[in-house]
């Protein structure tokens, strides 16, 4: 790309000519500098960048090292780097992994491929894979320092998996590029819907041996890399699922409180929706409803579930499987059972990036389906049919009123008035932490900006509690998280608007109830 011309001024030699002897003539030493100017031309250096993709077995369990194949490294930065570490030319690979640029001939240089996808125009993105074990250095792979000739040249670079047939015996160079490939694929489904999108920056933290877990938080994907225990660089659905959390966080909104979760759990509605969306998005982006996660010795074990065919255990509005099946059915073009809709991603994206961001309730299947039906009124009956197939009665508002299964566990958003008291009782029938009933929701409105006091006090005779609360106005704004027993108080300045309050008991005392006041 970059035309580089070098003018080299070469001092060839200095001649000192001395004449002496013989007759003692009058000649004197003469210094004659000779200067030669040489222009160095350019050649086209091109090539293809690939990586070893280790696929998952067709049954979704374990990695299939017998079918490793080369895949293109797409949209990443490629530099020609000189002997003095100077960048001589830069470009990015195309969708086939190809790159080309003009570089000086007769020059020693190497090709460096960075685990970075960056485009500063519109649409734009900035994704890089960092080595968390070494100061978050950018992962790169390099070729050798070699002399360019005088004719065009090809240098193909390949990132090997490091697998020798029995174990990873050399560096897992392919890992960062495998993850970038899945992220590239994930971005495409959004780009197809919103071609001028500017994706906020995303850092992926990974290194061979990483035991920190796989999760998304605060603009970063943290990915397992622990051989013989849990590696995720080739688990495309896992990577796409975590990317979906980035999408929620940066382009939509998530109110999930995190924590461990399984596909049959009865979860807090915020967790169920966020995790169900993550699963569904992975199926949509990869055009494959079989979610798989490989683990264990030689990455030969794992688990999978099918978002199209599996029967949900404990279906309902609190189940991430129900959420992923509903969202996937809304999206996909395959009609099956109650699913006769094929909306594609655009209507879902519209809800995620608009109404979901500002909904007055916590983000859940209720807020999503309410908005989707509102924006696609002609398909409301068919949407209801898909929702109903997961044992969820027709959703008519963002708070989920009208439940027919586990209606007693519905977070009913008790109204809290200024000067009034509301009583809430967390429950633990389905586990603790992030399960259905653990967190109780209230809503209140502030008509006059000012200083207010929120108090949560145990209201009955039970064990020692530790009430906590979070206040939301679109997103979490204030927490009351002291370790005081049986009460929690926060004095804060509130502006005019609608608020949500999430009340829970850190000690999970069964039977405990709390009076919540706002003054």
């Amino acid at each position, binding site marked *: 790309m970059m035309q580089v011309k070098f003018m080299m001024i070469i001092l060839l030699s200095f001649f000192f000519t001395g004449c002496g002897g013989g007759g003692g003539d009058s000649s004197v030493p003469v210094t004659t500098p000779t200067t030669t100017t040489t222009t160095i031309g350019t050649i086209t250096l091109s090539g293809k960048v690939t990586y070893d993709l280790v696929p998952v077995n067709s049954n979704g369990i374990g990695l299939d090292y017998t079918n490793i194949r080369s895949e293109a490294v797409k949209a990443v930065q490629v530099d020609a780097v000189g002997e003095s570490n100077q960048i001589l030319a830069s470009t990015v690979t195309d969708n086939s992994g190809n790159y080309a640029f003009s570089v000086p001939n007769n020059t020693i240089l190497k090709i460096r491929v960075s685990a970075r996808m960056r485009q500063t125009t519109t649409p734009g993105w900035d994704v890089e894979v960092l*080595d968390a*074990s070494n100061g978050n250095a950018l992962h790169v792979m390099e070729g050798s320092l070699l002399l360019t000739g005088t004719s065009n040249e090809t240098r193909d670079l390949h990132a090997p998996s490091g697998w020798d047939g029995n174990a990873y015996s050399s560096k897992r160079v392919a890992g960062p590029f495998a993850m970038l490939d899945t992220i590239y694929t994930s971005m495409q489904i959004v780009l197809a819907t919103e071609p001028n999108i500017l994706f906020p920056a995303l850092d992926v933290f990974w290194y061979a041996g990483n035991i920190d*877990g796989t999760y998304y938080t605060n603009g970063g994907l943290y990915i397992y890399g622990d051989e013989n225990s849990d590696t995720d660089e080739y688990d495309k659905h896992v990577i796409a699922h975590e990317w979906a959390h980035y999408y929620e966080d940066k382009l939509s909104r998530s109110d999930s409180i*995190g924590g461990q979760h399984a596909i049959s759990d009865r979860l807090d509605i915020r967790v169920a929706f966020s995790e169900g969306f993550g699963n569904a998005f992975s199926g949509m982006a990869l055009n494959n409803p079989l979610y798989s996660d490989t683990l264990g010795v030689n990455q030969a074990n794992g688990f999978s579930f099918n978002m199209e065919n599996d029967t949900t255990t404990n279906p309902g509005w609190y189940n991430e499987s129900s959420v992923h099946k509903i969202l996937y059915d809304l999206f996909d073009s395959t009609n099956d059972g109650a699913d006769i809709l094929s909306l594609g991603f655009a209507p879902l994206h519209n809800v995620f990036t608009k109404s979901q961001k500002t909904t007055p309730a916590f983000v859940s299947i209720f807020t999503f389906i309410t908005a989707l039906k509102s924006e696609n009124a002609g398909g409301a009956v068919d949407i209801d049919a898909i929702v109903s197939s997961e044992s969820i009665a027709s959703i008519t508002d963002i708070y989920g009123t009208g439940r027919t299964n586990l209606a007693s566990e519905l977070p009913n958003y008790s109204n809290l008035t200024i000067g009034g008291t509301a009583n809430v009782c967390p429950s633990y029938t389905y586990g603790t*932490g992030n399960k259905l009933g653990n967190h109780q929701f209230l809503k209140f409105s502030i008509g006059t900006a000012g200083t207010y006091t929120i108090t949560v006090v145990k209201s009955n005779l039970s064990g020692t509690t530790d009430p906590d609360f979070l206040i939301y106005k679109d997103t979490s704004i204030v927490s009351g998280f002291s370790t005081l027993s049986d009460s929690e108080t926060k004095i804060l300045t509130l502006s005019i608007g609608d608020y949500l309050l999430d009340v829970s008991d850190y000690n999970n005392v069964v039977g405990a109830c709390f009076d919540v006041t706002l003054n």
Partner: protein
Amino acid sequence: MKIAYSIVLSVVLLGTSAMALSVKVKDPLVVKGTTVGKYAKPGAPVDIRYTSEHVDVGDVSNVDIVFTSSATQGTMKVNIKVDKNLNEHTGINKHLTFDLDTARKDHPVHLEVSADDDGLYYVRVMVSIKGKGMRAFAVPVYVGNGKVTKQNVTIEKTKRGENISVSKAKETVSH
């Protein structure tokens, strides 16, 4: 949640202090950790809490891991594997099963390990519950200086001052 945060912080602080120590560890420091409240990918609904003692080379570290699950029925299978350079003294069964019910939430496991060299080692655990997926955990065991054995990684700086972790590509050159 707040305790979870403070425990994580204490692990970080202990880890930092562990790194700064010389080889001799006079009294075992207890490293604590938990997965409770952390964001996690889909998998078995299991959390762990753990303590492990930072000990001197050759001394025995007590490692206690408590498994908790929101699942109230079925069986939780736990496979335990200690790093190959850790000596395991307890002789416990490495393939454990726990029946899940509503009454019992905590499922403790106790191990005693030691190492002949300084370093940071791990006790790795794989948990599975039928129909609910799997989940992997790693519990750190600090011995002596507690430092990670550096992998074969080349860190360089670009002309622009950016740190890069360099790997060798397989390269094919043609004209």
